[in-house]
């Protein structure tokens, strides 16, 4: 049996998300890149949709990791470039209309098939 047979979706990847909105006290807009655990993706999306998502407890709630955050409407191009570079993803592959859960499931299957 391959060592990879026990891998979970959270072992092999993250859903890298751009979250944006308004800070309280009229402090202006913000943006934040998050690395969401695939197992928490649905719960995360539900919280965002229901307006119950508190970005301050994202990490401690176990949703994943905060990559970078900042003030402004959109992240500067160089920040997005660095995030893409960190994850080894070409710029032109960002914001594609893909099914991330299917992509993770496919990658997990591929990893599990790899023998040591």
């Amino acid at each position, binding site marked *: 049996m391959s060592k990879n047979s026990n891998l979970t979706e959270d072992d*092999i990847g993250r859903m890298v998300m751009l979250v944006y*909105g308004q*800070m309280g*006290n009229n402090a202006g807009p913000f943006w934040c890149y998050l690395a969401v655990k695939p197992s928490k993706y649905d719960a995360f999306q539900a919280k965002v949709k229901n307006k119950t998502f508190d970005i301050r407890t994202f990490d401690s709630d176990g949703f994943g990791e905060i990559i970078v955050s900042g003030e*402004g409407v959109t992240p500067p191009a160089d920040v*997005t470039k660095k995030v893409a570079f*960190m*994850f080894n993803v070409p710029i032109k592959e960002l*914001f594609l209309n893909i099914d991330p859960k299917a992509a993770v499931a496919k990658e997990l299957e591929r990893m599990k098939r790899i023998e040591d």
Partner: protein
Amino acid sequence: MSEEKKGISWGGLIKGLVATAAVVAGAELLFPGFIEGTVSAAKSIATSIKDAFTGIDTTKVVESDLAKNIGWLATKVGGIVLAASGIKYLMSEKQEAPEPESFAAQEDMKRMQALMVARMRAQGYQPAMPAASQQR
């Protein structure tokens, strides 16, 4: 642990987000990120972390907020999904692109930014700017 002068915080939240409850207008998928390579996951994780820190001048890492925070991020999530080459690049203090950007790369960036804004608008996002007295 941030570059507060730029209003950007790597590996954490900017002060404005820590201080107040934020209204999240939307969340868009940037991309699903996976561990790199075709070797076993365990080997990739170990190799990624090792490669990321090998050859890094730790004194410089301490001196640089960005590098320090990327280092923290690397220890937390990096071994799982971050590309070792990307971590090494970001921690190396060479923050310029390794090679001059081609015209095609610049066009890719413009298209990506236009797509980003279009996605935000599709969510009905019309951000209010801070009051003039609060602008920096």
